[in-house]
């Protein structure tokens, strides 16, 4: 039934589908593991029961999400071999050890302490339990470190030579691991994971605040999430800009496609919107701002920005996809920053918890992080095409000698199973999120309004632990 389709195309679909389904879970669990560690640390510091309630609330959700991340990740670790065997044989000596380090330093750490974290509090006591949570959080970050190093090397390969059977082998491991795009990609992705989680936590807090704005647990969630949005969203935009400039240096064709430029310009415009057409080699109906493209990319008014026509047609990435995915990511990034600023204003006015429209906007923004992460990955990965290892190994030359029937059948099974199994998982997670945090309500019978307290410290009054430390000192 799949014979009319191309095995290469099916293998690419399968990779795109399974990796997209997978990245959603780590993006959430990297951030959530760190959040849980912070919550439990704050609880140890203050013994404020609200933190423990919120911790338990998110721990249950973490367990469900983490399980889905694990099983969808195992599929990835075998798919390289089943569907991309030529790639695997050639890159094994250089990328394999990095993934080996990921397994040894990250996966075992997470898995080893997950059991204690989920089921062991009564057995090990609060301090060791906090240690277990911390190890799980650190494990997720180690994992991000190694897998992003692998991915970055595929974009900007350095530190290698080629041996007599055609494998890429390391000449300098430091240059392999810390290849030119790695630091940017790592920072960008970890911040993205933190923001993704912050907007989920904030959205859940907001949802419950809309029902009862005195809900203690919801207040803790919402306040902490909005601090993240305020501080990290602008940071992420800066990090993204640096990453973009790094891409311009190493993969200018990708940037040309992101920007929708087919012709090379001095003083290139910034194309806000338009419809790129790879066949006709032009972006139709372009809405442009003159010279701004050059200013952003080269930091010069009349800087030269290469267009896609500077590369042979078979070496270009498809602008029709990444022009859009890039705009989705950037748009959501700015929307997150706006939410953060809005929350900052509300906090300064002492009305963070009396802002129903901010709550509604936050609920609406719950999936924003996931969509932005996916759009960003689509931009960078589709933008790497037609290469698996940029400039060295073509995607078409990486694939296993497999039949379309085998790939098609497994692709179909994965699609059906992922939608049913992960669909059920997401449904359970949403149901858990609809439960109230169960941390009591604020008793503010002494006066309903915080609006009067515009002293500098009032800004921090929403952070219970600072509040507590302050009141303990006084």
């Amino acid at each position, binding site marked *: 039934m799949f014979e009319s389709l191309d095995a290469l195309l099916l293998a690419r679909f399968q990779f795109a589908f399974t990796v997209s389904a997978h990245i959603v879970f780590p993006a959430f669990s990297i951030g959530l593991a760190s959040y849980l560690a912070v919550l439990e640390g704050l609880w140890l510091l203050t013994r404020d029961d609200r933190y423990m309630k919120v911790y338990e609330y998110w721990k249950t959700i973490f367990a469900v999400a983490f*399980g889905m991340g*694990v*099983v969808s990740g*195992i*599929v990835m*670790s*075998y798919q*390289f*071999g*089943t*569907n991309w*065997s*030529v790639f*695997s*044989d*050639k890159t*094994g*000596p*250089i*990328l*394999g*050890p990095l*993934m*080996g*380090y990921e*397994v*040894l*330093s990250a*996966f*075992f*750490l*997470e*898995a*080893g*302490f*997950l*059991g*204690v974290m*989920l*089921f*062991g509090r009564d057995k*090990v006591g609060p301090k060791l339990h906090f240690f277990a949570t911390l*190890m799980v959080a650190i494990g997720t970050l180690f994992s991000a470190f190694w897998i992003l190093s692998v991915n970055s090397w595929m974009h900007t390969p350095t530190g290698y030579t080629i041996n007599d*059977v055609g*494998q890429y*082998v*390391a000449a300098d491991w430091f240059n392999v691991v810390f290849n030119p795009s790695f630091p940017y990609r790592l920072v960008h992705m970890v911040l993205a994971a933190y923001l993704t989680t912050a907007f989920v936590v904030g959205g859940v807090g907001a949802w419950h605040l809309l029902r009862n704005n005195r809900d203690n647990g919801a207040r803790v969630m919402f306040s902490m999430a909005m601090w993240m949005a305020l501080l990290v969203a602008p940071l992420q935009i800066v990090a993204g800009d640096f990453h973009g400039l790094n891409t311009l240096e190493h993969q200018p064709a990708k940037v040309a496609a992101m920007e929708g430029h087919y012709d090379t310009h001095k003083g290139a415009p910034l194309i806000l919107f338009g419809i790129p057409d790879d066949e006709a080699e032009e972006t139709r109906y372009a809405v442009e701002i003159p010279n701004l493209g050059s200013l952003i990319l080269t930091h010069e008014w009349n800087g030269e920005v290469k267009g896609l026509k500077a590369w042979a047609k078979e070496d270009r990435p498809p602008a029709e996809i990444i022009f859009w995915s890039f705009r989705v990511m950037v748009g959501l990034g700015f929307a997150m920053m706006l939410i953060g600023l809005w929350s900052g204003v509300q906090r300064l006015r002492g009305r963070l918890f009396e802002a129903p429209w901010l709550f509604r906007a936050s609920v609406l923004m719950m999936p924003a992080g996931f969509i932005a992460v996916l759009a960003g990955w689509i931009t960078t990965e589709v933008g790497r095409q037609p290469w698996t290892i940029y400039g060295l190994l073509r995607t078409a030359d990486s694939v*296993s*000698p*497999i039949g379309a*029937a*085998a790939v098609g059948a*497994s692709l179909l099974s*994965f699609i059906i*199973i992922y939608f049913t*199994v992960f669909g*059920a*998982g997401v449904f*359970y997670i949403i*149901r858990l999120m609809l439960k109230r945090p169960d941390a009591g309500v604020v008793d503010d019978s002494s006066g309903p309004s915080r609006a009067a307290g515009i002293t500098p410290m009032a800004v921090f009054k929403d952070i219970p632990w600072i509040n507590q430390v302050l009141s303990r000192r006084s």
Partner: protein
Amino acid sequence: METVFHFDLAFVWAGLIAFAILAYVVLDGFDLGVGILFPLLDNDRDRDTAMNSVSPVWDGNETWLVLGGGGLYAVFPLVYATVLPALYAPLTAMLIGLIFRGVSFEFRWRTNRGRFLWDWGFFGGSLLATLAQGIALGALVQGINIVDRQYAGGWWDWLTPFSLLTGAALLVGYVLLGATWLVMKTTGPLNDTARAFAGRAGLITLIAIAAVSVGTPFLNEVYLHRWFDWPTVVLSLIMPLLVMICVWSLYRGLRLHRDTQPFLSAISLFILCFIGIGISFYPYMVPPSVTIWDAASPDDSLAFLLVGAGILIPIILGYTAYAYWVFRGKVPPGGYH
């Protein structure tokens, strides 16, 4: 073909990968065995207890599979790039099985109406993953056709009477591991049920080991000479003897209610079988043509990862042991959830 022994990085790594695969088979073997026994237990409370006896450790156990796969990619990329396409269908089935099994641990507790679905997912996933692993093992033992660093066989080569036999053998083996694990970890009626299953599974496992052992030497010349030529023919006498000792210890433990002994005996059985496969295979990674040294990455890659493995594997074993220690002893009926 040069088959002289070299003690070098490739050999060390072959040993480490073998250790990872053995650790996986033994550790996830008992999880999967519990999953296969799941619907045969008497009531929901016993099922809760059984599942919770493995909930805190299954993820760590499964990580050895990732180390096996990831390790092959790193240090024996040629094996990774040829065996995985050759075993495309069984490995895909295994992954699908592991998906269902893995998510069921949490999903099952998140729904009342849908619980039965995840009970079936847990059982079906465990069963599918086990059969697929056993069949994949059999297919590998039969040999894989490789030309020019690529798999050159057909898409159904893995399906033979022998691979079905190994699939069935692994199934009863995992059931034995799972049943003896439950003997060790549970009390009361569940313990009695588990003991009964362990008794039956032990016998069938013994028959399966015999069948596979008799079949293997006739798959190719190398195996035949290995098991019937002097001096290695001695092993053909020693190995069955050791197997019988394990089986004797298993039944003695079951009869005398020494609840840990059957599990340890079952593990020993698995280790013996694994050594048996090693004896057949050496020096090949992928019979009949790829040796350990053909498949190895350059020494530089082997050394780079070995530094990390040398430091991290002892630490991993340390905290894994700690995690088992935290949850030592009998599981309270109903479990931790």
